[in-house]
């Protein structure tokens, strides 16, 4: 059969991606594409992430199975690559963190035994990139997220899910119907606090401005100079809000969250403090083990 439409790689900040756990197929067919709906209503089968690879581990025994953590100004997310993604696995194994990477991949939601839903990205490709590319991605992801927030707001002003179910209002001011349906789904499932995601964008842009207002000579020096951006502290700063303020605790070691608290500062220089942040976050997520993390809510 002649081709199929390639799925667009959506731009979702790590923090929003981490909040996402609504996935569905459009029909019963096992080959139907799997979609994830994010809290602001993005429907994604594929994402492009550009951020800092902050850690990597080979979780496999006989066969290599790589896990990396990629951080953007809002948070971080795990990226996996195994034998079925040989290029990505090779790239991940060959990249020493910290480094800027561009990851194209499929979001996947994993449900633990206790019903906790964890999201990660199964990488199709991982490639080292430069700081300019990372900056461009942050800008673009901010723009796309604002697009979605605007659409969401318009949806709510139309009467939200009531109008959605009656369909009357939709006829008057028609955005793409599919988008509306996706926002409707997000609204029903997450009832998202849009202000929180607006804040997320504001912070990402603030971080970006801090980046680009630096003298460029420093940036041009070497890639190593650029590593600080987006990694460590800036990532955890958002996590701390996302998890500390969330209605449900996803982790048992809530005590560790406090360890992450600190000044919100994107311009922080490279240093031990930042590394510490990463390590603490590792504790926070630590012990999750293999690709298929199984943990019980042992409180």
């Amino acid at each position, binding site marked *: 059969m002649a081709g199929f439409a390639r799925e*667009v790689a959506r731009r979702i900040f790590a923090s929003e991606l981490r909040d996402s756990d609504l996935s569905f197929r459009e029909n019963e067919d096992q080959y139907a594409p799997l979609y994830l709906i994010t809290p602001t209503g993005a429907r994604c089968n594929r994402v492009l992430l550009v951020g800092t690879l902050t850690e990597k581990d080979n979780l496999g025994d006989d066969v290599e199975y790589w896990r990396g953590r990629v951080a953007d100004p809002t948070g971080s997310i795990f990226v996996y690559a195994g034998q079925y993604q040989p290029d990505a696995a090779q790239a991940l194994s060959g990249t020493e963190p910290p480094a800027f*990477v561009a*990851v*194209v991949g499929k979001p996947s939601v994993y449900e633990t035994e206790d019903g906790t839903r964890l999201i990660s990205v199964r990488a199709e490709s991982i*490639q080292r990139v430069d700081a300019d590319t990372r900056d461009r991605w942050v800008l*673009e992801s*901010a723009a796309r997220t604002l697009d979605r927030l605007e659409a969401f*707001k318009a949806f709510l002003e139309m009467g939200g899910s009531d109008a959605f179910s009656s369909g009357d209002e939709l006829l008057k001011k028609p955005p793409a119907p599919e988008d509306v349906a996706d926002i409707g789904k997000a609204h029903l499932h997450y009832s998202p606090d849009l202000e929180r995601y607006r804040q997320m964008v504001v912070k990402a*842009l603030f971080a970006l401005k801090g980046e680009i207002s630096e003298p460029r000579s420093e940036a041009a020096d070497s890639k190593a100079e650029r590593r600080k951006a987006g990694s460590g502290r800036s990532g955890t700063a958002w996590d701390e809000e996302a998890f500390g303020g969330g209605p449900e605790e996803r982790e048992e070691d809530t005590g560790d969250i406090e360890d992450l608290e600190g000044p919100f500062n994107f311009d922080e220089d490279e240093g031990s403090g930042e590394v510490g942040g990463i390590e603490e976050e590792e504790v926070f997520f630590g012990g999750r083990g293999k690709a298929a993390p199984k943990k019980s809510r042992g409180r």
Partner: protein
Amino acid sequence: MKAAVEQILARLRDQKVDVPADEVESRMRLLVEKFGVPEGEATRSVVNYFLKEHGIAPAPFAARKSECLKVGEINNPGRWIDLEAKVVELWEPTSSAISQTGLIGDETGTIKFVKWTKSELPDMELGKSYLLKNVVTDEFQGRFSVKLNRTSGIEELASEVEAAEVQAGGQVQEMKISEISEPARWIDLRAKVVQLWDPTSEAISQTGLIGDDSGVIKFVKWAKSELPDLVEGESYLFKNVVTDEFEGRFSVKLNRTSGFEPLEEAIEVSPQEAKFTGAIVDVQKGSGLIKRCPVCRRMLTKGICGEHGKQEGTYDLRIKAVLDDGLKVQEVLINRERTESLVGISMEEAKTMAMEALDHEVVRGMIGEILLGRYYTVSGPTVDRYILVETISPVPPVNAQEADLLAERAEEVI
């Protein structure tokens, strides 16, 4: 299918014939799915089949109750209906089997009609209004029509029916290629054959690109059309071709009812220029160092051309990549010259690389390392779903103003 079965059961019940629904359905499926009979036709056949089984002669069609519909309400084929309509246009019949054809309309729209010669019905006059009794709806490529046959009737109406404006799509209209914006429209085109491609199926006699001063579009000439061959570089008036759409891209199809005539004057073709900015999210298979068939220039797979078999092949260097801006994807083709300057490697160097690694794929891998995840702006003519890249440049670094503008937007968004 369900609706058709219900319809059949109802019709049989009218004749006091009771048949299990599953028998009707399996008979319908047999005809429609296995034998490809149109649903309307199959419905009739199934009704007759069961009537016959119960020793009832098929009822005269006129005796069947048909419903009175408006033109705009016609939404499925194979329905027997009554229409009050005005003859809006009369066309030259294309076959002796047709005694009259054209457009009829009421206030809800217009629809094509066909009056079969065999119906022996009187001719209708342009501009007059009629009650058309027991006509049957039909559908072809998404457009509906009504057929008048032996069991139909025509009665002239004393009062005139207001007919809606003839929709542009209701008749064949000459268009520019760039104006094509919906599938299943019958149009005329003045265009030049820009490229002929190898047909991918025996059902296709010719395929390729035709163009006019507004753009280019893919065409397919079906083998069944039995039309003569088009010549590359020649200009034609294409008559009654039908538009089609696949994944948002349009094409035109030439079938049995289509035609073309050579034009004296050559049509100027302006390729559609496109520009796209996005991140490169894939460097596809078939990128890098490839071998092409010396006869048809197609890429060889393991030394074999799909058309010309095993070939020595000539080397080429190119990139097939996918750009993505988070909203849509754009496939691009980058030729040897631009690939060489973009990745900073000559084809000779690529050959050496491949030779040393004993693997052509290393070249694609290297290209991926340079391009993947990076943002580029490309421009060039579009062919099918590709941009043939003429210029490609990295997107400049984010400047403070861009970030400020977005930050302002973020302040106001909620």
